């Protein structure tokens, strides 16, 4: 299972990658593994929307389950991955790269402190599975 070091993670299996105050958001390798084959994704926010930490930002559907994706941090949506809806399977093949969901200009960088680092997230998954 892939848990890149440079990312931050949530309890709900979202990741965020920070670059100059803007965070790119997606779901983790572990999340896609749990969901199995993903057949549908709908991003619920559009560019310019203001979102808050914990808001529902996307819906993901696999052959066996449906899941909501929540915002790891609040801020202004500056980009949405429009390609993703046409290629939901990339969430399985490339969860940290091609299948990013949205980019957010983070309003309160302090919110990032509530998230886990790669080590914390790995522990969390192992505890759950253990």
């Amino acid at each position: 299972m892939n848990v890149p070091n440079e990312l931050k993670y949530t309890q709900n299996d979202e990741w965020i990658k920070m670059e100059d105050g803007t965070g790119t958001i997606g779901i983790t390798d572990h999340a896609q593994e749990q969901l199995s084959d993903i057949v549908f994704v709908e991003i619920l926010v559009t560019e310019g929307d203001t979102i808050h930490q914990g808001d529902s930002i996307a819906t993901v559907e696999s052959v066996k389950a449906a899941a909501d994706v929540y915002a790891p941090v609040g801020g202004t949506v500056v980009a949405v991955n429009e390609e993703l809806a046409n290629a939901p399977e990339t969430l399985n093949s490339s969860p940290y790269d091609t299948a990013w969901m949205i980019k957010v200009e983070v309003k309160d960088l302090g919110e990032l402190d509530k998230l886990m680092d790669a080590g914390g997230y790995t522990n969390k998954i192992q505890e759950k599975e253990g």
Partner: protein
Amino acid sequence: MYIPHTDSEREAMLKTIGVEKVEDLFDDVPAGHRFPELNLPSGISEMEAAQEFGAIASANENTRDLVSFLGAGAYNHYVPAAVDSILRRGEFYTAYTPYQPELSQGTLQAIFEYQSLVAALTGMDVSNASHYDGATAVAEAVNMAYAHFRGKRTRVVLSPALHPQYRQTVRTYVSGSPISITGDENGQDPLSEGPRSLIPLIDTNTAIVVVQYPDFFGRIYDYTDLSEAAHQAGALLAVSANPIALGLLTPPGEFGADIVTGEGQPLGIPLSFGGPYLGMFATKKEYVRKMAGRLVGETVDNRGQRAYVLTLTAREQHIRREKATSNICTNQGLMALAATVYMSLLGKNGLRQLAELNYQKAHYAASQIASLPGFSIGSDELFFNEFAVRCPIPASEVNEHLLEHGILGGYDLGIDYGPKYENYLLVAVTEMNAREEIDLLVSVLEEITLAERHTEVTHG
């Protein structure tokens, strides 16, 4: 009464919760109101009950004994005997539609065929396994549009020529939500206006525009312009259609409808004093995940055989209760089966012939009525099997007079459209109305004109 528990089981249950007898469970009800004496007659035998209920039922007027020209959403069509005989097979005749693919392949296949037929008839990509009736199907279309725009568009435009009860049902469904409804406010004159009057109401906050085809007054409009106006504003167009008329008319999918709903009752379902009926709902593939209700798909089982299963269930409330478009998944499985059998029996050409027959008979009736002094047809537009008649006296009085002659007249338009329309009668003609019946209607209406003139003469 059948009580499944034995005395010893009940004793054990009472002991477990620490109560001596069942009556103790009602201690919270004040003693004076506990176990009131019910003033009921003593029981009667099955034979007596059958006779008594039979006598009560025979007090109803019905379309077997009367000549009927009443439509307004529910139509008196012939139901071939094969419909009922298939419907009543034990494998289908259940109170609750079974969906487990392991044991319900017959039911699932029938629903799949229903969906395929409805999609073909409406010109849409996909149909669900049905709703309660035409009214709730329209309400679900509004729901779906609201969900499609994720609540960001809150305006709904309803044609005043959409069935008044459907509009009421939409209002019931959306009450308490941010949705506002426009287009059908009071004081309008829907018989002298067409769908064009709706175009200025469509804006970028409009989620959906809903029209009827043929409309409530039987009129056939080409909704292409309305469809373009709706789409230009980014809104959806829903069309509530009469499935029999679709045997003859251009499918709504061809003039840009995003959703097609309909009352499926004309497809082999008896009038039955108002239900059970069948809500048809079809849409384009791109909206399938926002569509409410059950959906059966075709697949291949682990032995490589064709099989049917419920599909895309993640849309539904039993998986995502709060996120589902609708919390109603109930369908009308048995009525959908009736419609499937009916459509299969008639086939494409049969349905077209039936629609033509309805059209011709209605036009014969309209031309005869229009030739009577004092009577005129309420609109110059094309119509299918129903039309508004302007009468010399209130429609309610016309209906009373017709009933005296064993004729169930039309629908009194004053009921929904106010005093301005109190002289308007909505007359439906189907294949069930023989020429003699139509001629009888015309001659009884003529009596009214003669009586009117007589009154005028004596008063004059």
